[in-house]
């Protein structure tokens, strides 16, 4: 047979060679293997479906809310925000403290705005307790949260207790993981 070159034939030949070559190149470059420990670590974070953030309505608390939202974005976690109203032991637990309640609600509303910016579901809890730490642990248990993200005050005045009492209680009694975020002092 006499050779006969046509433009269309040449284009088809090039398209054919490019397609097969491209397919083989793509096939030969699969993603790297994930080791068991890495997979566990990756999915351990993915398992945070309900995240609790205690807030005081201050900058470091709100940063903790933002941090929690980013932790929960991929898996669309629920963000439980709690403000613990510490009731002095001299008063009954259900005593009316309008100023404290207003402050708490304001802190929760601000936190809610942060959560909604991430398209996540906020759950707000104004909790009354003798100690903030005890109140947080109670909310964590009742809401079956997977992790608590706690922002703590940046200043440390050189005392023995670097964490503060609330943090100390949480680290001892929390029913789940605790992530502490401390800003530089």
């Amino acid at each position: 047979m006499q050779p006969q070159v046509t433009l269309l034939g040449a284009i088809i030949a090039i398209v054919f060679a490019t397609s097969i070559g491209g397919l083989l190149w793509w096939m030969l470059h699969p993603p790297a293997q994930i080791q068991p420990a890495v997979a566990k670590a990756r999915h351990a974070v993915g398992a945070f479906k309900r995240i609790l953030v205690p807030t005081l309505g201050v900058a470091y608390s709100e940063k903790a809310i933002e941090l929690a939202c980013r932790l929960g974005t991929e898996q669309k976690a629920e963000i439980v925000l709690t403000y613990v109203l510490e009731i002095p032991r001299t008063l009954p637990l259900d005593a009316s403290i309008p100023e404290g309640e207003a402050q708490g609600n304001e802190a929760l509303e601000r936190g809610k705005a942060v959560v909604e910016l991430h398209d996540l579901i906020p759950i707000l809890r104004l909790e009354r307790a003798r100690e903030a730490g005890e109140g947080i642990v109670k909310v964590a248990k009742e809401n079956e949260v997977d992790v608590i993200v706690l922002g703590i005050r940046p200043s440390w005045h050189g005392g023995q207790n670097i964490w503060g009492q609330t943090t100390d209680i949480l680290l001892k009694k929390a029913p789940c993981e605790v992530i502490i975020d401390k800003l530089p002092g």
Partner: protein
Amino acid sequence: MKTNSTSAPIPTQQVKHELRRDVTVWGSFMWGYADVGADIYVALGLVMAYAQGAASLVFAIAGSIYIMIGFAYTELSSAYPVAGGGPYFTLRGLGDFWGFVGGSALLLDYTIDIALFAVGSAGYINFFMPYVIGRTPESFVISIGPLHGINPIWCLESLIIIGILIMVNIRGIKESSVLNSFLGAVDLMAESSVIIFGFLFAWKPEMLASQWKTQFPSMHNFMYGSSLAIISFVGLESISQAAQETKRPASIIPRTSLTLIFTVFIFAVSFSTLGLGVLPWQNFAARMGDPVAMLAHTIPYIGLIAGPLAAILGATILFISSNSGVMSASRLTFSLSQFGIISPWFHAVHPKYHTPVRTIVIFSMIGVIQTILSFLTPSAMDTLGNMYAFGASLGYILVFIALIKLRFSDPYTPRPYKVPLNVNIKYKGRKTSFPILGVIGMLGVGTILFEVVLTHTIGRIAGPSWIILCFMYYVWYRKRDGYPVFGSIKHDWEAEQIEVLTSAEEYDLLEQYKLALAERDKKRKEIK
């Protein structure tokens, strides 16, 4: 997800998974390619004979449906990386009875694989006949009474090939990944060279246009040809076979199988387009035994070498495909017996060679019978292709239904690859993605099955007869062992899935799966 139990469970120790081989990405691709890539050697002449000037269109239509089937297999093989293939997916999705139907359809196809590819391999050996003995294979054709066009020499050659396969499989051979890789790579290069050189130096667009315009087939032939074109894609099951023996199948299989699907599709459409632009379709119809070698022989510059090389490659690669029919039948019966679909009797091993001798002999002998009977018809290849199409299309329909069902009944198993085009719907309070392409694919394969029943005289009788025969056995076996005929035996799919993902070293998916199950259990607890 647990299937409703109506009988005693199968002991868990009975369901064991084979050890995995360390098959590389290239090895995994070549495993499939050595099987599926061989099909065009058989299909080209056969489809051209019926689809005539519209052969490219027919290959493109059948290929589009095949791509959808391939998508379904890719999703299921990467989600359930075990060797059972279509019947396993069907069994998981639809229960034991439909798993049996899918299994028997596939078993029919494996026996036809043995026969069809042995006949094809012999056809390519016959390329050299005129040069060796000075006679063409067609010169041996005889008539016996009312039966015409019988080629006893070609038939004998095919039977000898099956005989060799029976012997070597009883003695025990291992499918060589290295040999498959080597032959597949050589074949890939050879086929690519024929296509590239063919389009560059031999292809005449006006010839293609003329054949399209003047040689367009009748509707009957178009339908017949498009249902036969499905044999260009025989061996899709090898995707799931490869999954069982590939490390990290969930990461590797989507890439290798999608590459395989598109490569085979491109080859099928390219060969038919090239063929119609180089030679009249009648030439291919007259050389059903070795169409690729004949085409390669006509290409300028490389034809002198490419023709004989294509014939040698065709004969070898089709021999391997025929052998994969024997081995796959054995794998399938093993898998079916593990799930109580057929008796473990089939898997008894040879006392000396420790090979599944009963399966090898029984299913190869069925292949022998099919070969002999097909040579009594005017065209052996046509008859075998005819029967193949029935089994394949029935099995593929069930796979599509299983794909859709499993999206709802087993949403917890992570799917590293999903059939494209999904819509999210709420089902039992959970977001589920419904595969639109699964429905389109099912309708497409359904159309092919309809075409088979409508146009394939032999396929529409032999296919259902085979299924009925198998059903009679199934009823007898299940009743004998106290298993329900239409119900399912209890299977602990969750434990099995964890075992499969662990052995596949798919740790990321394993964690995802465990997490999904834990979440489901938590929700169930909350509801209680």
